[in-house]
Each structure stands twice: as C-alpha cells, then as structure tokens.
C-alpha cells in the first residue's frame, strides 16, 4: 500500500520540512538521476560528479526551509547542484587560471548534422574532456544561461575573460565534434 502511493514533489518537500525521514529518501530517488546528469557536465568523471551530487543533496536537505515554493522545486534544486559543482571545483582545481586568448582563433564551422548525430553521452564526454575553466564557463553560459558578468562573479574572473574562455571552449568542442564526425563517417563509409 505504502509503496504504491505516489507522492507529489510538493508533498515530499512538505514532509521533508517536517523532518520525515522517509521523504528525504523518496525525494532523492525522484531527482537523483536527473541531478547527476547536471553534475556530470561539471565533472571530469562520474566519481567527481557523484561527489558533487552528494554534497548538493545534503545542502538541499539542510536548506529545505529556504525553499518558499516561488519557482519549481526542481529548478531550485538544480541551482544548488550547480553551486555544489562550482564549490567542488574551487576546492579541487585551480580553475581560475585565466588565459586571455589573443584573437578569437579561426572561426570553425561545424555542420549541425554532425552534432545531431552525436548522442548526449558523446557530448557529455566532450564537455568532460575540456579543461575545468573552459568547461565551467561553457556550462554556465551555454547550458545554464548565466551572463558573462554573473560568470565573472562566480569564478572571480573578468567579464572579458569569461567571454574569451567561452569562445575557446566552443572552438575546442567544435574541433572534437568534427573529428568525431569524421571518424563516424569513416566507420559508416
């Protein structure tokens, strides 16, 4: 009976705030996979990502009372995961080695179909292969939607540095995709 009952997110959040232990686990089970997907983009590998996820969830439970229900709970949780990931890198990597790249480099065009042919797992691998600084800026800007000013504040770098790192990250990704695409064609051919 109990196991069949499906709690809504709001119910779980409410019960978690009331200190009900079982709800913590149910809430975790409901969101863990999705949140690990977020953390993976910021991590070099899965182990790092799971560390971020664990710290993120602990903070979610600790700060549960701060969630007023203004936006979606998932969005709130996701932001905490992102911050947990940023904090992880502050502790474990010197990601703030800012290199202002002279010139934007050669504008490399990538065939959109090449990207479309790659599945999410491949793209994830490409992102994880980026150096931590590039990866962080690309994630925050391209996927999370932060502005360069916000990224600069989070990472402690200038707005310009954020822009140039983003540009460099894109260039690297495009190169990788092209190479990967070429290999695929080779395999296909």
């Amino acid at each position, binding site marked *: 009976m109990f196991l069949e009952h499906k709690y809504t997110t709001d119910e779980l959040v409410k019960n978690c705030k009331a200190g009900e232990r079982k709800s913590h*686990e149910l809430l975790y089970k409901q969101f863990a*996979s999705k949140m690990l*997907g977020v953390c993976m*983009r910021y991590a070099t590998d899965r182990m790092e990502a799971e560390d971020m*996820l664990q710290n993120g969830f602990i903070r979610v439970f600790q700060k549960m009372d701060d969630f007023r229900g203004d936006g979606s709970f998932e969005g709130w949780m996701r932001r905490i995961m992102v911050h947990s990931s940023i904090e992880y890198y502050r502790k474990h990597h010197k990601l703030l080695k800012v290199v202002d790249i002279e010139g934007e480099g050669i504008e490399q065009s990538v065939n*959109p179909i090449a990207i479309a042919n*790659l599945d*999410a797992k491949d793209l994830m691998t490409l992102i994880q292969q980026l150096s931590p600084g590039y990866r962080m800026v690309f994630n925050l800007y*391209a996927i999370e939607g932060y502005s360069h000013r916000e990224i600069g504040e989070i990472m402690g770098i200038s707005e310009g540095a954020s822009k140039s790192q983003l540009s460099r990250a*894109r260039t690297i990704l495009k190169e990788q995709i092209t190479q990967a695409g070429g290999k695929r064609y080779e395999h296909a051919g």
Partner: protein
Amino acid sequence: MNTQDKEFDDLFRSKLDGFEVEPSAQVWAGIDARLDGKKRRSIIPMLSIAASMILLIAAAVLFIPEGENIKPGHPKKNGPAISRIKPVTAKPVQDTPVNTVIKKDAEPANIIANSRVAGVQHHTKKMEAPVTPAEQPAPVVVKQAPAKEEDQQLIAAAPTKPAEITTPVVPGPETQLSIKQPTTIETTGTNPTNTLTAAQPALTQQAKPVVKRHGIHNFGDLVNIVVAKVDKRKDKLIEFTDTDDDESTITAVNIGPVKIKKDK
C-alpha cells in the same frame, strides 16, 4: 556572438537537458550517514552548552562574591581589628558608658571625654604598645567590659566604677591630656590606663568570636550551618564570614584540588 554559436549552444543544451544517470548506491548511503550524523552531532553541542552553562553559573556563584570582597578586604589586612571593633563591639561597650559616665562624673571632663573618644580611634594602635606591658589587674576589667549595657549603666551610676569602664575607651589621650589638665588625671588617670590596655587586645580577640557566634543573620550563616552539617572537613566546602555591613561574603572555598582561603 553569432547565430552559429547560439545554434551550437542550443544544440548542446537540448541534447544534454534530459540527460540522466543513475547514481550508485553509495551516494545515498553517504547522504543518509551525513543526515544521521548531523542529528547525532547536534545533541553533543547542546549537551556541552548545557554543561558549560552550569559550570559558568557555579563559578559565578562561587567566585564572584569573593571577587567583590577583595576591594574592602585588602585595606582590612592592614588594620582588621580596628575596623571590626568600631562598628560591632565598640558601640555597645564604649559609647554608652562613656557618655553616661562622663556626664555623671564631672562636667568639666566632658570636653576631655569627647576629645578622648575622638582620640581613641586614632591612637588605639599606639596605645597598645606602651600601655599593655604596664599592669596586670586589667583582665578583671576586661571581663566586665563584655557585660550587658544595663549592667554597665548601673556600674556607671556608681562613682568609682564608671572610671574603669571609661578607661577602655580613653587610653592614649589620657596620658597626653593629663599633662594639660591635671584635674582629670586623678579621676580617670591611673586605673583607667591599665584597663584600657588590657581591654583593647581583649576586644580584638572578642571581635572574631562575637561575629561568628551570632545566630543566623543572613544567607551566609545559613549556608555555613548547612555545610557544617554535611562537610566535616576542617576546611569546609564553602565558608561565609560576616562583613561589617552585616552581610556575608565567601572567605573560604575548598573543592578538592582547589582551595581558597582568605585570611582575616
């Protein structure tokens, strides 16, 4: 940023947006342990806070009263006997007999008597040295001194005895005064000086026991009695002593390794 870049970003976002990976079981185990640990940990600081609060309160109760007493206590070390005698024992024994006796005795002596009374306070110390060695009949008078006021007043009525009573009050000045006014010397002169000298050490000795023997006058006395019942050691767990203001302060603490005793 050109459109190509935007397209590129959008492709990544849309592809990765729904990306899910099942975390290993260790992750929840770690969270679970941390949540558990948090609850367990939260009790320990609570206990330690409570314990430190109790310690602080205990320390405050034990030591703060003593700390306040240090200020008046130091000057007392120089002349504890005098300060004690003045308010506690001196009043009943000295003041009343002096006034009554002098008035009845001889009116010209009044002036001297007053000056003596004033003089007593200043000269008491000096007096002891020269006079004490003098004579021994003094102890007899001393025994009379602690007598009740009524007795003293009766004695005062008699012409000869009052002289003895006044003597304890006016030891030093007399000798000096006698030189200036020979009349007074005869009435109060020789005998009084003897008694005075004897009386003073007697008074100082009496002062302590008198203070301690009083019944329960304040909280300190009550504590002393209770502690005495429980604590049979020589140095009690805590000991109060009355001050001049009829208040009590802690003068000794004995908590096993920590022993504090204030000498009076």
